[in-house]
């Protein structure tokens, strides 16, 4: 009887021994994430480098975790930050509070915010996990800047 139990266990071992391992060597190896993976947020710009975000608070209103803080301000017409009259002077997401539901993306009327397939976010302090525009916002496109100047 005991042998039968042993053999049954060994069968599992032997049958999987030659299969390739399912674990991957993160970070040397990278896993392919699903297309609609919801990770770190990003704020986008238009082709002309104006920010898409207009500081409308709709993402903050939709957010079930209340992790988005915005302060809006009026654009200087001669040197606008965003398209339109209004922009987000302060835009902060507390990534520790965020539940990555994607409601902010759905609520956004300008397609300014998306959730990107990035999940490696860590810090030694909680404060560091409050991402502001410096972290979230796409860098300006160099060619658009060149076209402007």
């Amino acid at each position, binding site marked *: 009887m005991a042998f039968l139990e042993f053999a049954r266990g060994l069968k599992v071992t032997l049958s999987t021994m030659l299969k390739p391992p399912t674990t991957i060597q993160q970070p040397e190896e990278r896993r392919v994430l699903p297309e609609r993976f919801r990770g770190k947020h990003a704020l986008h710009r238009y082709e002309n480098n104006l920010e898409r975000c*207009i*500081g*409308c*608070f*709709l993402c903050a*209103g939709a957010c079930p975790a209340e992790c988005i803080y915005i*302060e*809006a*301000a*009026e654009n200087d017409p001669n040197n606008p930050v965003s398209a*339109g*009259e*209004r922009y987000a002077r302060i835009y902060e997401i507390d990534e520790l509070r965020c539940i990555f539901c994607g409601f902010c993306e759905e609520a956004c*009327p*300008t397609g300014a915010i998306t959730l990107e397939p990035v999940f490696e976010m860590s810090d030694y302090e909680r404060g560091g996990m409050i991402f502001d525009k410096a972290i979230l916002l796409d860098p300006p496109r160099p060619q658009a800047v060149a076209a402007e100047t």
Partner: protein
Amino acid sequence: MAEDRVHVTIDGAQTEVPKGTILWEAAKDIGVDIPIFCYHSKLGPVGVCRMCMVQVEGMPKLTTACTTTVTDGMVVHTRSPEVEKAQRGVLEFLLINHPLDCPICDRGGECPLQDQTFQYGPGISRFVERKRHFVKPVRLGPTIDLDRERCILCWRCVRFTSEVAEDNKLILVDRGSESFIGTFEAEPYVSNFSGNVIELCPVGALTSHKQRFTFRPWELQQHPSICPHCPMGCNINIDVRDAQEVIRFRSRTNEAVDDGWLCDRGRFGYDFIGSPDRLKTPLIREDGTLRPASFSAAYRLIAERLQRVAAEAGPHSIAGIASPRLSNEDLFVFRRFLRDSVGSESIDYWPRPEYSIDSGDSAALQTLDSALTSIDRIDSAALIVLIAADPSEKEPVMELRIRSALNKRSAQLVDIGIHDVPLSGKASAVLRFAPDQIDGVLRGLFLAAAREAGSEEFAGARELLDGDGPVVLLYDDSFPDIPQERRRDALLSLAYMVDNLRERRQVGVIPLLTTSNEMAARDFGVMAPNDSGSVWGEPLVDRLLSGDYRAALFWGANPVGTVAGLTEAVEALDFVAVSELRLSETAGLADVVLPASCFAEKVGTVTNTCRRVQVFSEAVPAPGMARPDWQMLVELSQRWDNPLSYASPEAILADISGSVPGYAGRLPTSYRRVGPLGVAVKGGGVEAAE
């Protein structure tokens, strides 16, 4: 059924309304919602937006509910297919040139155009042409931003300035689809009442410059309250974000007080609440500078020093001066603390009228007090008389009520005063005199001898005063334009005038007081008779100057900032304690400063200029350790032999209701029962007028 009532059937529901009722109002009364943009109950029908189309049986075409008066037997359908098509059509028209920038519009979220489009409008637009464009935003004036693309040209703002405020500041410029709202020659829109157009605007065209892009409506919680800026006591909602930050004041309609309007001083005067210089802890003077301390240390010091002064010079050498902007509860406890705990009768408030009334003249005060009437009595007056008073300056919304009475109810106005005020233009008779002649003029209107010899100038005013119907007299008992030595005479002659008028007509008086809760300060004896037997004693502040006192408590009052020579007098006192919102001039001289919470940070009541007691509620937390004044006084009193024992402001309300003459029996003992619109107390004048 009386002859002046008619039956109307709206969507199958029968109702009976007074003859002449506008169909929209009749539908609203039975809960049938007819969408509107241009109509407003306070502005009357104009019929331009065409949103309120309804089908009336027997009429060939759809008709506008806002311009139709109901007739007996009228049968109305508000949801028929024709009506729904018309509503979709009008909304489509309104939206084709609308920028649809709801995400950045300050009105988005509380916008009638948004709401009604969701409810009645088409889901899609068929408009593919070029939209109409305007330069935007336009700074209309110091308070208002205008977005002409969002404007649906309902004329509410234009009608407000032409019919209610009567300053005709906003106009319609250009014609047809190119027309827009503007000011004459693009002059800035400066008015006492400009903020009202923000609330009237049914879209986001007129928005507040001060609050531009700072909030979204869905973040705000509303707290019913009372405007603290004048004794009119206009009802407001305090809109608060995150239970922390006061975002704006909005009007809250109370027909008996404000008629739904608010002045700019009230609407935009909220910065002091969240101001960074608010006191957050008690301060105690050590080595010449005020340093933060604990409440117990502050109380201990106040008690020790006051008790020492009382022992050396008697309790009456301790003066207590309160601010008339404190709540009823604060003022009542302040008086009780000084009288019952400290044992001092030296109580007063500041600022107050700077003259005294002897006990021999108390009949005059009683006359004026018994004729006190309610604000809405202005509406039914046949004659309104201003006596050296400028409502526009002191209580601006009173100006709107007077204008409404003059325009809608054919009342007449007599302006008796030193100089022109904004309302003078509406007066049927104007009587001007030199500042020191007020006594003679007011008596001269009635004295037979003076009447015969009286000059032509008197004729107009006299003729109107001799007429019939109820009279409302508005006066400013601080008499700012009259020389100080003539003010007492002015008050006495005013009482003489009331007595004379009363022989023939119903007379109501409305005093235009200076500070929000001044009426309660007087009612609660915070302006106590002093040892000389006066009814209104000499202002205590003046006696401080002559060195009659050894110690003083300033509860919210800041006379040092306004009275010359008071700095030295206060510095000479043995001990000064101050309770304040921020470090005022007076607080800067104090030995102990206590941090008080303001009206938006506590529950309480105020009494308005016509003795209507109204409730305000806690909207935001007080900064730091700041506490309500009543609470600090109760805590402080525990160090005396006769401590006060109130556990809550409602307990004080119950005590006021039980002990203050005139309030007793009229003022309910709980805030819930005082209700959102308040109650009138000690209505001697109200009853006398009836």
